[in-house]
């Protein structure tokens, strides 16, 4: 089963290779990995999409925790989470296709971020199914280049019923 694991690490050289080496050395899958600094520049946030049975995921979480440069590990599948991926797609657009391309962009609430007489460069964000869907629709036009960020994800805040919240505010 697919799991999204959020890993907070030290923002130091070599940390990415420690994490990647752990996965390759122990034969764990990485479907995607994205990493960037957090609000605190001494830390980076990694989002790793991986898969495996319960036992393997438990090992992945434990092994990540064991790395000295890893500060925090959260298996997001244990809670509610939202995730997004961005793709940048460069499509060939002949005269007749340019309007069609824009229609597709519109349907998916994507953006054209660069344009030449023969190409559009389209940026789209969403869950992986949405990205797949727009790729499928654009493919007949001719995709010249495609880059995807891999997923980033964050746990959803637990939501209390509005009435309870109101009471709490009143008490305060």
């Amino acid at each position, binding site marked *: 089963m697919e799991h999204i694991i959020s890993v907070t690490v030290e923002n130091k050289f*070599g940390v990415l290779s420690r994490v990647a080496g752990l996965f390759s*050395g122990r034969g764990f899958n990485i479907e995607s990995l994205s990493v960037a600094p957090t609000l605190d520049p001494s830390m980076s946030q990694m989002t790793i999409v991986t898969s495996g049975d319960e*036992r393997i995921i438990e*090992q992945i979480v*434990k092994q990540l925790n064991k790395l*000295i440069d890893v*500060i925090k590990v959260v298996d997001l599948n244990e809670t509610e989470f939202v995730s997004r991926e961005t793709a940048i797609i460069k499509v060939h657009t002949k005269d007749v296709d340019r309007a069609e391309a824009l229609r597709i962009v519109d349907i998916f609430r994507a953006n054209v971020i660069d344009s030449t007489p023969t190409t559009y460069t389209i940026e789209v964000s969403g869950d992986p199914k949405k990205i797949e869907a727009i790729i499928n629709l654009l493919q007949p036009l001719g995709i010249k280049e495609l880059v995807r960020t891999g997923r980033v994800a964050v746990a959803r805040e637990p939501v209390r019923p509005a009435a309870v919240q109101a009471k709490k505010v009143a008490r305060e």
Partner: protein
Amino acid sequence: MKLTGAEIFIECLKREGVKTLFALPGGVVLKIFDTLHQQKDIEVILTRHEQGAGHMAEGYAKATGKAGVCLVTSGPGMTNVITALADAYMDSVPVVCFSGQVPTSLIGNDAFQEADNIGLSRPCTKYNFLVKDVNDLAATIKEAFYIATTGRPGPVLVDIPKDVSMAKADFTYPNSVSIRGYNPTVEGNKWQIKQAAEAIMKAKKPILYVGGGVVFSGASQELLELAEMTQIPVDMTLMGLGAFPGEHPLSMGMLGMHGTYQANMAMHYSDLVIAIGARFDDRVTGKVSEFCPHAKVIHVDIDPTSIRKNIHVDIPIVGDCRTVLRELNQILRATVNGEQKDLRKPWWDQIREWQQAHPLTYHQEKDGPVKPQQVVKRLYELTKDRDPIVATDVGQHQMWAAQYFKLAKPNRWLTSGGLGTMGFGFPAAMGAQAAFRDRLVLCIAGDGSIQMNMQEMATAVLSKLPVKIIILNNGFHGMVRQWQDLFYEGRYASSNLGTTPDFVKLAEAYGAVGLRVKKVGDLDAVLKEALATDKPVIVDVPTYPYENCYPMIPAGGCNHEMILEDPPELKMKQSGGAKVTPEDKDTVLTA
């Protein structure tokens, strides 16, 4: 006052209590060696190969419980020490290895003797550091020792570029270390410990399965109390030997692939496995799907990744073995009564039956070739009063040593378990001898494995490390030959060593003492002569070449299905050589 990087290095080592450094120089570490040369607090033991330096640091660490320290140069110095680091990583040995690196300005330029030391060592160290600024050196060394010796111990590498060892900085040694991503759990979960105590009270067929974690955490006393109080038999892993007295009536000896019959049977049929500081390695579990089919499992380990890695665990307890056992004992002391003894009487009857049915057995004929087990057994009997430290290489001799050398105390057993590194024993023995100059240090080796680090004899002679090496010389890579006999229809592909050097002359060539056991009747006299010598000694013991190590669980086999002796067709084949007949009762010796 400002100090150079090299001086800071030495000051840090002194503050960490390092007395001995196993080292081999080279271009980029010359400044450090030059500074070491001008001080007297730290003894430098010059090895002949960096692998030797690494294993010596391991031997030192295993015998003392403190970090072993080695220093190597860049490039080939680093690649040579990798085997020892990998070995230390597998067996959780606290080693701090310092490597030289080309000057920071040249890193990445394919400079002379440059290697990516951090990249090379990453998968075989607990952590590694590249020090780019001399101002970070002291804090880095402090962290290196802290990481190596706390939690589940392991090797740590500190890579020091040449310019960092030459540059100057103010020296302050930090008093404490705080690493936000590294906080080993020492105290076990109290509720889980209570659960464990309850399970122990209820169990009818419990077994203690103890490993190297007990040795490293210094929990032998607590283990002894637990076992005696609850009257639970104790199985030891290869790494756990010495954690519990080998001659104790509760000791089942070693378990696993070449473990004793009773140890493996007790494990297989138990209803409660209490694993302490052991990691359910494949050489212990055999076929995982049929491992301990009736048992609940309690697993105490400081490393959470060890728990549920191979085996389902019912009561996991993450924590330091000693701390957890103390708490567990405290609960049990209040609850244990005579009832458990009655409850477990059938279990003990069964165990004693197993013990009597298949004790460790070999057959030494009075005028026949020397049997390797006989050598280990006599060596044990002749030396046990001297509380020796015993190192081994890897192979048949290692298993015989594990079976017949019944250690009474922890930190006496230096062997390569996880990585199975041939050539480990001799340098490891030297490392222990360097730590304890007055103790008796033995190295039981094979004629194959001793040749993997034979060059260190020069170090032993130079540094006056009077290790006693006993070579069980069968002319083969014996364990390979055994597998070939059992599973490859006796085709000895590259297991016959063909020619072996004259080890007596070889010892003499190095300036050590060489002795040979020509017949079994001379064994005691020659061993005694070796033990009375104050120099490094090689005792060459030509042994029966076709002796096999039993019991044996074939790889992937089930623990209660042991091979206990040579299959009939093998006996037939070998009867052309020395006669080995189990019927020959009057010559049968049992351990």
